[in-house]
């Protein structure tokens, strides 16, 4: 099963810009490779990554086959209030993973 690693600072000052790192295990099969018998290996990628902060979307990425296996995404957001950051990956073959992280803002 897919597993995700998320790095969010557990606490931050109000208004501080925090860096978030995410890594998820996924083959990101491009759909351009062939087996040794010449058959095309079907595409299997994560198509979308969304990060919401207490329900509000703060970051979104549309991924294509040119993203490496095990997509690694780094972005930032402003720590506005204590709460939950939720991360969602969706892709081919019904792939869907949701993870969340808590943050305390002082």
């Amino acid at each position, binding site marked *: 099963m897919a597993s995700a690693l998320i790095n969010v600072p557990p606490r931050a000052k109000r208004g501080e810009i925090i860096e978030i790192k995410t890594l998820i295990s996924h083959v990101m099969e491009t759909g351009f490779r*062939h087996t040794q018998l010449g058959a095309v290996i079907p595409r299997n990628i994560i198509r979308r990554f969304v990060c919401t902060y207490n329900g509000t979307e703060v970051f979104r990425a549309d991924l294509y086959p*040119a993203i490496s296996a095990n*997509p690694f995404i780094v972005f930032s957001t402003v720590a506005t209030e204590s709460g939950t950051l939720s991360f969602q990956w969706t892709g081919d073959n019904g792939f869907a993973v949701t993870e969340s992280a808590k943050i305390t803002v002082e």
Partner: protein
Amino acid sequence: MERAASRREFLKIASGVAAGLGLGAVVTVKPASATPAEMQEAIRSVVGSARITPGKVTIELPPLIENGNAVPLTISVDSSMTEAEHVRAVHVFTEKNPQPYVVSFHLGPRAGRARVSTRMRLADSQNVVAICELSDGSLWSDSAAVVVTLAACLEDGI
């Protein structure tokens, strides 16, 4: 030089003959590759027909890449990221990957800083282009030329 050229010709003909004899499976299939024109088309289909000005965006990409399967890519945009002036989106395209699209990042004033990183695949030595869309609708671009030693997408599965 002439010898080399004729040798190349011979190989070309020989592979053609082999394919003709039904030995096509033995001949390596060249992977699909987009062209710079296709990249321009892809850029237009994503950002529309507005003018793209070079500047404001910076691509950080190693100039020499040993393994095209995982190339660290960082894009930063010179923007204050306020409600009035922020980056709406950053799109990345390549010239010679099988598909020109790489990734689209959608940001907003909540991002605080316009800087994103990921890892991408590169199928060949080529130009990588980043286009950024600001909140006022203007488009800015940067491109980086990279040399790839081991290309992605070439190795076959089992």
